[in-house]
């Protein structure tokens, strides 16, 4: 019993000093093609942390940081669809479950618009001594996150949105 306690304390201290990688200027963009207008937006202030010892991976961004080419879309996105005043942040809390040839499977909980769903995403995960490069692409369905689209809008909005993630994490000293 004592040995176990010592062991736990030891590992705890080891793991606190674990290798962590952090990035604060990642990019997430999304795109949806509709007959009338393509909708796209980019967020360059995505932050993420990867813990090399536990394989924990978390992402976080502010919804209001998404920039649209058309200001009115940005307003509708914040005001009507994502309601960024009520749900200012989106986050992902997960873990890298599998890496084969720099292709990783990440699984965890994605929270958008105050709704959390568990997702599995595959992407490239290039880890070197001092950095981790993450590149991924996946589809989210608006109805999974309770994002309602009114029947009368000028431009159609697709039910599925393609999301691209691109971030470089640097080893935390």
């Amino acid at each position, binding site marked *: 019993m004592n040995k176990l306690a010592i062991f736990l304390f030891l590992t705890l201290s080891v793991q606190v000093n674990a290798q962590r990688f952090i990035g604060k200027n990642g990019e997430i963009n999304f795109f949806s093609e509709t007959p009338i207008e393509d909708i796209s937006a980019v967020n360059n202030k995505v932050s993420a942390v990867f813990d090399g010892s536990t394989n924990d991976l978390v992402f976080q961004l502010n919804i209001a940081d998404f920039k649209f*080419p058309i200001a009115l879309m940005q307003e509708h996105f914040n005001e*009507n669809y994502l309601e960024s005043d009520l749900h200012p942040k989106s986050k992902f*809390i997960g873990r890298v479950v599998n890496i084969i040839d720099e292709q990783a499977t990440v699984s965890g909980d994605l929270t958008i618009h105050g709704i959390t769903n568990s997702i599995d995403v595959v992407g490239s995960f290039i880890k070197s001594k001092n950095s981790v490069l993450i590149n991924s692409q996946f589809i989210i369905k608006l109805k999974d996150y309770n994002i309602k689209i009114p029947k009368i809008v000028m431009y159609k909005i697709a039910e599925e949105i393609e999301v691209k993630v691109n971030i470089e994490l640097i080893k935390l000293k």
Partner: protein
Amino acid sequence: MKKTIILSIYFCSFSVKAQDNLLNLLSQDNEPIYITYLFKGTKVVNGQSVELPSKGVLQFTIQHRFGTLNSGFYNLYGLDNSQVRLGFDYGIKDFLAVGLGRSSTTKTIDANSKLRIKRQIKDGFPVTIVANFATYVKQWQYTDNQLDNFLFTNQLSFAHQLLIARKINRDLTLQISPTLIHYNLVETLDEPNDKFSLGLGGRYKIAKRITVNIEYFHQLNDKINNNVLSFGFDIETGGHVFQLHLSNSAAMFERAFIHETNGNWLDGDIYFGFNISRVFTLNK
């Protein structure tokens, strides 16, 4: 058994703690969260709101005001008489916009600039402050040049406004607008060139895309005409904002609707009007 429990608790708590710690690492920088979208449009009803067109956006507004509702069936309750203001507003920067418009009946051209001075911040600065400066030119004809007092500068009048608004909650925004109107030429010696007024306005969201707006300007000195009281409905339909108005003034620029309003609500001098605005993104 005991060990297993301790171990599992340990790992459980550890993994939660680790991920929380990781999130905490990200939440350290506290950038101010600006409160945005206080009003749906750049105007409350007739008067300017604290909203500006975004940078690179050109907003084209067609404003219509009909005659009074009490003008009888012969005039189709005012619909026979209509006046128009065509206006353009352009966002040079996110905090600076300029506008140009012309009102038909009064043959007045107005030019204005709006400058956002401060923004409301969540748990921080309480209000958004915008300054609005406008110049009005009354158009003249060749024969007007014969008049004794004809000078170009005499055709000018100005408005200086401070627009102070606070988004109380996601539905309710209130605005207070101290205003100074300067007339370069007044009709009588007794009339002052500078007139002060205080505007009060607000909007309440009754549905996600519909707001009810109200606006009142109280004249503070040398009041000759009535104070203006207006109600509006803003309906957002994607690319357009469609605004319906009821007001005791038919004018569509500050000088005229604040100090030159003849209509009286209680007598039924109510003007129905609507605005349609369309935005064009010129500069992406």
